[in-house]
């Protein structure tokens, strides 16, 4: 199982306190940029009913799902507060603004 770093673009392609998605055969990945210029990537699927997290409002290190307001931690992928659920987090590397995400070959094979 090897980790490939795959370039996805520049940090400035994402608005501050915003997100963009990356399409993969495995479903969409949401890449977030916080007010503090940190970048996180998580699966773009709310643990509640699959809402697109990339479309939510980003605050602190969390995003609120646009469908029914689950608040998901960008760091851990876990639902915060009283709600329960978890999404997969994906490692991101930021080198001088050039972003890449870690892609596990094994996961891809399994996804096929």
């Amino acid at each position, binding site marked *: 199982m090897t980790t490939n770093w*795959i370039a996805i673009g520049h940090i400035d392609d994402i608005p501050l306190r915003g997100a963009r998605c990356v399409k993969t055969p495995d479903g969409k990945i949401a890449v977030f940029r916080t007010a503090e210029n940190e970048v996180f990537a998580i699966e773009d699927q709310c643990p509640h009913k699959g809402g697109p997290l990339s479309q939510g409002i980003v605050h602190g290190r969390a995003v609120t799902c646009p469908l029914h307001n689950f608040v998901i931690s960008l760091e851990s992928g876990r639902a915060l507060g009283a709600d329960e659920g978890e999404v997969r987090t994906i490692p991101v590397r930021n080198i001088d603004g050039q972003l890449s995400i870690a892609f596990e070959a094994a996961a891809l094979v399994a996804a096929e």
Partner: protein
Amino acid sequence: MTNLGAQKLVIIGNGMAPGRMLEHLFEQAPGLYDVTIFNAEPRVNYDRIMLSPVLSGEKTFEDIIIHGDGWYIENNVTLYKGHRIVEINRQARTVTSDHGVTESYDKLVIATGSVPFIIPVPGKDLPGVITYRDLDDVDAMLLAAQSREKAIVIGGGLLGLEAAAGLALRGMDVTVLHVMPTLMERQLDPAAGYLLQKAVEERGIKVITKANTKRIIGTDRVEGIELDNGTIIPATLVVMAVGIRPNAGLAKDAGLAVNRGIVVDAGMQSSDGDILAVGECAEVDGMVYGLVAPLYEMARVAAAHLAGDTKPAFVHSDTPTKLKVTGINLFSLGDFADGDDREEIVLRDATAGIYKRVVIKDNRIIGTVLYGETSDGAWFNDLKKKGTDISAMRDTLIFGQSFQGGAPLDPMAAVAALPDDAEICGCNGICKGKITSTITAKGLTTLDGVRAHTKASASCGSCTGLVEQLMSLTLGDAYNPAAVTPMCTCTELGHDDVRRLIKAKGLKSIPAVMQELEWKTSCGCAKCRPALNYYLVCDWPDEYADDYQSRFINERVHANIQKDGTYSVVPRMWGGVTSAAELRAIADVVDKFEIPMVKVTGGQRIDLLGVEKEDLPAVWADLGKAGFVSGQAYAKGLRTVKTCVGSDWCRFGTQDSTGLGIRIEKFMWGSWTPAKLKLAVSGCPRNCAEATCKDIGVICVDSGFEIHFAGAAGLDIKGTDVLGLVKTEDEALEHIVALTQMYREQARYLERIYKWAKRIGHDEIRRQIMEDHDKRRAYYERFVFSQKFAQVDPWSERVSGKDKHEFKPMAAVGFHQAAE
């Protein structure tokens, strides 16, 4: 219109005292007099006390008007605005204004107020040196404050400190010069004066005490001040607030007895039997007054005498002083000088910044100073007024009412324990019993209702807390003012406070709000950010840059997200009217983008459901070519204006309901509102457009347009209430727009019109929109101004490339590797 047989009453000056006098007079003896008023200030009667909140931005001038133009018309009063009376001719019984208008009187009331005292130093007449008395002074200060330069306020009394606080909030660098060793020395003892000085300095205002002004420096305009000790302080604005003098010159010239003020007896009669004087210009029993409570008492007495009842007589009473600077609590009453025959009880709590002092003579309270914690003010005032013997509670007196009689009472119990005749509102002299009985008799449920019916808390507002407590006592759970629900977990403040402070502090960005109002999180949450963004868009339409990252996804991408992550698209169909060309364009778009569902909505337009996000700009481009703009079906903003076919087609139609609906929609589209806003216009009372369950509806009738509001047909169902009937389409539009703007400015985010209206009272809304012409016009104009920035079609903007990133994935990865 003159009233045959009526006597002629002429009033000089249109301030708070004669305004109140007329209210009493019209109640007691309607039609007895034909009233003419001359006012040197070119405006209606307003609440002078509240000029400081206007200066600081917490209120607008419209908010503090007491009698709008409509009131004068209704009561048949002729008001000469901007006319200064220059002569009273007692032989001819006439007065003459500086514009040459002469009017004869049977009875004359002089109510010329006071003039600010100007210290006679060189430079006092330079431009940039002003006083603080009326709206023109506030406007001059606001203009000067735009420079953000240095200002000096001479005078550390009530007026001076309010001016200083207002100017500092407006961004000026302010220094207060005070001639005495401590601030407000006439109302506060030195210890409280010291605490006050600290609090003033914490607001970034410099205070120099024992400061004697030698001269004001400047050639063409003011450049600074030189003190006696040679210190020079630069400034571009100097406000003199060193005291007032009764304005009695005119009376003196007419040969009336004048001492410090115009000498009147306890019935407000001057030395001429047909001339009365009320307000700050009057002197009763050797005393002149500068606070409204005694002036209102004069007004009551004068009205009775004018109405023919000569029994009421003016009696002196002390009025508590309060400073109206947000965040500084201060209460002072009566006499508190040291003396051998007096004893005092003092309580200090340095960490909490509290200081309390009660001065006692012969076991009775004669003076009270409270700083930092003033809730017992009403109780002390009551004890003093009644001359209650306090020996039994001497040991606990200073801890306040809640400590008397064993276990500490909570604040509610303390208010409950006040006797019915305890004074709650000092300005208007309203006691507890009057408030509670009016709440019950009139079924009042809102603070505004209580203000309207009793006048309590309607002048300086510092008794608002007490009035609210009385309301919850009287109404039980039906009213709960203490429980301000915070906006969200990021702050303790409720929506209303946040809205008020955004205006008051001039906060113009989300980070500024969060910083100044001490948000507990670094960048808010999904509850407060959209609310703040709306408040800022509404309050600063020309200055605030909309923060799209703080909008819900629907408003960010201008389409409605559906449960599967696709979007729905609804183009505007003005008034629900469409055409073959439009329908053809829609059909083509549906085919081209293989849109799975086409549905007619409840708002008389067509919804295209299941559009992929990436396709949105292309769909909009095609719709745009056919002339469509966004229907904003996703917006907390103007949604639809439903119409019926009206007089053009329907045999029952009374007016062109379709045309009016389209006109309203074209006028109001693009505006953001606290929650969605849906309108309808029906051509007759058969109401085919279902206007009576809308946020705002119109029912056309033969005589005009009946405007409805505050309906609901969602989670709650509620028929509308009638706002009023207007004659023309133009008026209908103006009233609807003004109502919308009032709602935009006052409601909490996500609060529909019917909830907001319930909270603030339907009568109050009717009063402001139907009766108060000035207010309605001002709302209307603010809406029109904000539309200049709001009416941009978001779809065409995005077709031309705005926010491209929203509609495309950042990258597509893994497909190649996966295929390997």
